[in-house]
């Protein structure tokens, strides 16, 4: 008996020792947290400081289950609360919020981090550090760049969601349908930032409209050189970029069709990029895109079920995709930013030569010859085969 008590003590002791192994961990009641849904970071009017806006979800309308009519009329208050403080670093501002907020800000459920245009132009490296270092923040937060001030974005109440940050996060998820906007999480952003040559990218958002009709729109891609904003891609150029990155999920390509136009839906894509240093020292990147799609809709009365017409559509699709890719390449060369990550591909394939190429990669990137080979296939025509209104007999 004595022995077994001793054994139990030893077991309990060794289990207690595990306490020392655990990390930061503390008891906080759910109703003592201010759940942050989004951060917007802007350059402050004062030199060297930043304004940070935190969007906190306000959940007080929930209390009891039977708040059918009486409370919903009176509780017209917002579902969120934006707090803005100014300070020299993210961490100091975050602690500074406690001067205004009765609850401690809680970041794990943060959806978006938006950088203002001015701040992005000056470089955002210093402000990313906290989001990586702190244990409460997550690496799957969406990164966005505002065309103007970031805090404005968080002020626009979405029409369908209650909280702007959630609306924004859902909006980004939604971009898969068109593949005209990049989807960048903080870890993707950093992956590119760590690379010597690859330029970081982030989706651009802007507020359009006035007053009550204000909405937030995704409008292309912000291109960073190192951590500084240098330019932007429009929607077509963005999809061109996504073709090369093999990140086109879905989308519509409108092409000329016999007797009108046809909207072709992208169903599945795959891209292989092969970089090469040729014997004469010039460098090329060979982009091979395999795509298959469906006919989504058509105008005119051409019979697209005919094999000849399908061939024509496929060829038109090939041309359209090629054009999109080249528009992106041109823009990238114009901005001097290797958004495609060709540099890293050379580094992996030619580690020896890379040492010398690295120095003058900017010039080399401008000279890179991009070849695009598209293999587009049409798989289906939807529920109908022939056009809705057949050509009139002549």
């Amino acid at each position, binding site marked *: 008996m004595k022995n077994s008590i001793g054994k139990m003590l030893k*077991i*309990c002791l060794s*289990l207690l020792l*595990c*306490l020392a192994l*655990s990390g930061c*961990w*503390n*008891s*906080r*009641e*759910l*109703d003592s*947290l201010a*759940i942050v849904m989004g951060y917007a970071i802007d350059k402050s009017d004062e030199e060297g400081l930043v304004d940070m806006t935190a969007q906190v*979800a306000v*959940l*007080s*309308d*929930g*209390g*009891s*289950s*039977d708040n059918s009519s009486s409370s919903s009329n009176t509780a017209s208050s917002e579902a969120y609360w934006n707090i803005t403080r100014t300070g020299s670093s993210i961490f100091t501002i975050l602690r500074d919020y406690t001067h205004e907020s009765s609850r401690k800000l*809680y970041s*794990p*459920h943060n*959806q978006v981090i938006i950088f203002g245009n001015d701040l992005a132009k000056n470089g955002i490296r210093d402000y990313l550090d906290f989001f990586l270092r702190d244990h*409460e923040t*997550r690496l799957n937060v969406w990164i966005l760049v505002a065309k103007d001030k970031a805090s404005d974005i968080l002020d626009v109440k979405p029409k369908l969601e209650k909280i702007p940050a*959630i609306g924004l996060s859902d909006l980004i998820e939604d971009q898969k349908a068109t593949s005209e906007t990049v989807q960048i999480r903080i870890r993707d952003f950093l992956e590119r930032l760590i690379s010597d040559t690859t330029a970081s990218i982030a989706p651009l958002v802007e507020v359009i409209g006035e007053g009550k009709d204000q909405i937030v729109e995704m409008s292309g891609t912000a291109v960073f050189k190192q951590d500084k904003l240098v330019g932007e891609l429009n929607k077509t150029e963005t999809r061109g970029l996504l073709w090369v990155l093999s990140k086109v999920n879905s989308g519509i390509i409108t092409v000329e069709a016999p007797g009108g136009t046809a909207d072709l839906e992208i169903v599945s894509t795959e891209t292989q990029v092969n970089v090469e240093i040729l014997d004469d020292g010039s460098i090329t990147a060979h982009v091979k895109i395999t795509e298959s799609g469906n006919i989504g809709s058509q105008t005119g009365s051409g019979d697209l079920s005919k094999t000849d017409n399908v061939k024509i559509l496929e060829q038109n699709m090939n041309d359209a995709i090629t054009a999109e890719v080249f528009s992106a390449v041109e823009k990238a060369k114009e901005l001097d930013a290797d958004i495609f990550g060709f540099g890293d591909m050379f580094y992996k394939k030619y580690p020896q030569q890379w040492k010398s190429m690295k120095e003058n990669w900017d010039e080399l990137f401008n000279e890179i010859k991009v070849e695009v080979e598209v293999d587009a296939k049409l798989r289906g025509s939807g529920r109908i085969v022939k056009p809705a209104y057949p050509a009139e007999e002549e």
Partner: protein
Amino acid sequence: MLKFIFSKIKTNTALKKIKAIQANQGQKDQPSVKLLRSLDKNLTIFKEVLGESNDIITREFICGQTQMKAVLIYVDGLTNVAVINENIMKPLMYDSKLTDSKNEAKIKNINDFKEIMLSAGDVKDSDAFDELINGCMSGDSVLLIDGFSSGLIISSRGWDMRAVETPQTGSVVRGPREGFTENMRTNTALIRRKIKDPALKLEVLKIGRKTQTNVCIAHIEGVANPGLIKEVKDRISKIDTDAILESGYIEQYIEDAPFSIFATIGYSEKPDVIASRLLSGAVAIIVDGTPIVLTAPLLFIENFQTSEDYYMRPYFASVLRLLRILSFAISVLAPPVYVALVSFHQELIPTPLLFTMAKAMEGTPFPAVIEAAVMLLTYEILREAGIRLPKPIGQAISIVGALVMGQSAVSAGLVGAPMVIVVAITAVSSFVVPDQADSGAIMRWLLLILAGAMGGFGITMGLLIVLIHLASLESFGMPYLSPLAPMRPADLKDSVIRAPLWLMKTRPTGMARQNPTRQKDNTPSKIKNPTK
């Protein structure tokens, strides 16, 4: 005169001895007090020992023409009056076999009564007072005849008892509905009706100084390990207490881990369950006076098995076993995990769910762990009240519990609605595994406290302690967690899942080492006739 005094002294010494024996009952192997030759003296002693209880009948009569005085002593209510009248009194008083043609007594010996006179089933002779008294107390009739220094114990038991009914516990949709009764004989008969093999051995011990309870140890010879049988017998025969009122008494005296919250001896109210356990090599302990029959050893996994598993086809039976294990986990873990999530690991909750939960908890006055404790306590009180109350009032309790406590506690803002849901699912799932409901409730509270203090880390620690404890338990030499730990691959066919019956060719290897083969090849394809 001298003779009279002498006989008086004799009577008194015998009485004193009996009293002394009764005073320190239990000290075994005492010399028993022998019966005297004189009926009057014996009767005096009997009356002195049995006292004035009016349910004890002493019927004095004369045996037929022999003029021998006789006394029949029995307890009214424990005896079958028809047997006494027809098979004991009648032959003794009217039969002419007692005398030969010359009208002389041909009885030389008390055994002659047994052999030629009494038409009752079980008759044995004894010359010890305590044995005769015990027989009388158990419902047998004691026959004393003048001039013989031994008496007869005639089986005449018969009393009112409950019929074989459907048991309250372990009800089934498919399978036999009969259950044990309070009568040990009925119970052994129910088992024997399932197993008609002479190898089914029943051995009866009398335990309890005052209650003299019959405890029957059943096993199948050649299947159960002799070591196990011996161990069970040893442990039971070492019990020296004054009362065994229910099989729970036996269980608590002989179990391996009396300090554990987990039971290491199984029980059932159903003959088919006991029969199947006996056939797997277990030992059953049937206690007179209770419908609950014990089995040993008990493995942890057996708590998740029901008799119905074997009666239905194997696929759904296996799914049900997994479901039971899941339900047990939910019943133990749901409140602690909820508390840990809400007060420590909010980052683990999906954002939309977090919103819902935070909204529900907004404005509730207590921390989640207090909320959970109060709700669980309320539930335990309601459950206990529901069991003890008469059935019609039980419904009122559940209405008060469900509506008043649940609904109004939420609308009054005292507890969050998710907490009510968590407690409700906990309550419901705790009934899925009734055999572990008691240990589950204790674990639930333990883990809740740990979760409230240390979050998920506390739960992990608590579960580790429980796991270490479970792994250290043994039930009559069988590791409690087998066949999972130590792993016995051959026994896994009937553990978490239930293999088809025709695949279960062997008995559990750890339990039935002597006779491991349960059946020959009964694969259905071999059994059915070939068709074209």
